[in-house]
């Protein structure tokens, strides 16, 4: 499968000291919806912004649809539809004016397609952006990104401020657009249940680099959870991380081999992990103090 987003040894350092990310190697295959997950400050936004050319890599190389965004940012932006964490619309402009504005900035912007998505979400085109709720603003941001007809969509935590219904509508529009147009989407989010429904790949960032990069089905198949105290020692290469359940019970996430025989499992092998547990387990494993030395060592 062709990769449309690539990172090769990507590193980004701020103010000469703190490495936000270092040694990141990953690819996002064409036609997938990939979730990018990680704790706050793990560098998700930095990575997404770097793919659109808003951040310059301190080291390593990125590829956006075959283009190096550092060398040709304009071409990279032209290939991408971007939905930022907060869309920051022009408060004094109506939704329809935002669509016209996009058309003045980008050749080939499909105003009618964007208007179609806006209409589906029952957002009035005449409403001023300042009158819209956070969720509606995010929807307008998505419609603008879809209106670009870009084959790559980068979504930087667009679900953060949405209520469950708005999240569901947002993801529905996204999935439909991606599947029907053959786009590729990278969605950064903390909301695991939504990711499970919408995405087919999962990348977990932590410790300044990639902790996990698998399809959702692989991620579920390759992990198990042991509840309570661990009876027998777990080999270090199998142990991922420990974390409490919502009820406060101790849980441990372990890796299982690809050819794992379920019929021979005993209680010590634990139960199948949910996607949330897979993500939290890896995040817990990656939660060390992000000192420059620690990140350096991890890289």
């Amino acid at each position, binding site marked *: 499968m062709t990769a449309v987003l690539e990172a090769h040894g990507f590193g980004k350092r701020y103010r000469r000291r703190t490495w936000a990310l270092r040694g990141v190697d990953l690819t996002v295959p064409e036609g997938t919806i990939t979730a990018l997950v990680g704790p706050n400050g793990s560098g998700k936004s930095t990575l997404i912004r770097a793919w659109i050319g808003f951040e310059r890599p301190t080291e390593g190389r990125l590829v956006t649809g075959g283009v190096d965004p550092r060398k040709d940012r304009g071409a990279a932006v032209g290939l991408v539809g971007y939905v*930022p964490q907060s869309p*920051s*619309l022009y408060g004094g402009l109506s939704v329809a*004016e935002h669509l016209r504005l996009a058309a003045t900035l*980008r050749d080939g912007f499909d105003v009618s397609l964007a208007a179609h998505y806006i209409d589906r979400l029952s957002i009035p085109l005449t409403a001023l952006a300042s009158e819209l709720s956070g969720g509606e603003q995010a929807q307008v941001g998505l419609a*603008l990104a879809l209106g670009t007809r870009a084959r790559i969509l980068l979504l930087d935590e667009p679900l953060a401020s949405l209520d469950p219904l708005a999240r569901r509508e947002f993801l529905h529009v996204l999935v439909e657009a991606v599947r029907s147009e053959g786009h590729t989407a990278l969605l950064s989010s903390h909301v695991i249940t939504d990711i499970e429904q919408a995405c087919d790949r999962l990348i977990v960032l932590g410790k300044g680099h990639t902790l996990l990069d698998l399809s959702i089905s692989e991620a579920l198949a390759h992990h198990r959870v042991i509840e309570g105290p661990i009876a027998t020692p777990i080999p270090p290469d199998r142990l991922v991380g420990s974390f409490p359940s919502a009820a406060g019970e101790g849980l441990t996430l372990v890796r299982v081999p690809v050819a794992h025989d379920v019929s021979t499992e005993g209680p010590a092998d634990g139960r199948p992990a949910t996607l949330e547990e897979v993500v939290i387990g890896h995040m817990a494993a990656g939660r060390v103090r992000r000192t420059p030395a620690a990140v350096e060592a991890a890289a």
Partner: protein
Amino acid sequence: MILTATRLTYRINRFEIRAVLLAAALSVAVSALVVSWINSSGYVACINVYDTPSLKCLELMDIGRWATRIASLSLNLVPVFPFLAGLLLGTPVIARELDRGTARLAWSLGPSRMRWFVQRTSPMLVVAVVASFAIGFVAEWLVALFTPDVDLANSFAAFHQRGVLIATGAFLVTSVAVGLGAIVGRTIPTLLLALVLGGAGMLAIGEVDHKLLAAEAVPLSDSGGGNDLQLDSRFQLPDGRLVTWEELMIIDPHAMESEFGIQYPWVALGIPGTRYREVETREALIEVAFGLAFLGLGAFVVGRRRPG
């Protein structure tokens, strides 16, 4: 597409644009009313008449004084207008968009940041220049009314308070605010910095211009006429040399001791009024050049910076 972009820029910055256009329109309207009244009432014949005013002039005196005061106020505000208009129109163009994050949206939609930059700055610059030009034009009109004997095309009367220099001054300040806004990326700090640097810049340009003019100064024949731009004065020695007071004291230490005062003729140095248009054009070009430099700086920074 250009019209749509212009209209949207107007919508985005409508408060600032309306404020500047309203101020300009108000100033033009008030000045036009004053000029119209002065001309239609016959008060124009009473201006600059000090000896024996006619009966009609005496009748119109009270209203005339008010009209003159309003006109003077309007003229006094003229040099301030380009500064205020430039700050108001130039600051939000880039700084506010970076501050509020709308630049990030625009830059993610449009592959060319230069297109965005031109779309945003051009209408603001046009408004600044047109509004200031109107103010400068009306100021010239008022000056002409109150100095009917002066040929303003050949006179430094109300220098820097009329004509095209008001428009180029506004262009300069707007460009400074745009350029600084791209660097600073915050509205209020940009406004304050543009206030300081714009003011200092205009003073610096004025100082440089004064030095340039001083180097070109010639003895003035019409020093009392008000048409020339007097910059300095010298004493003329019998051999025709022009010397300063200090030089004169070295050459003739007893010059002050004569009972009739200094016997050397005093000569005013400056630029003859006939060079007004040339000097005005040169100064306007300097302001435009500096303005373009700041716009270039703004465009360069916009092309390279993070969207905030």
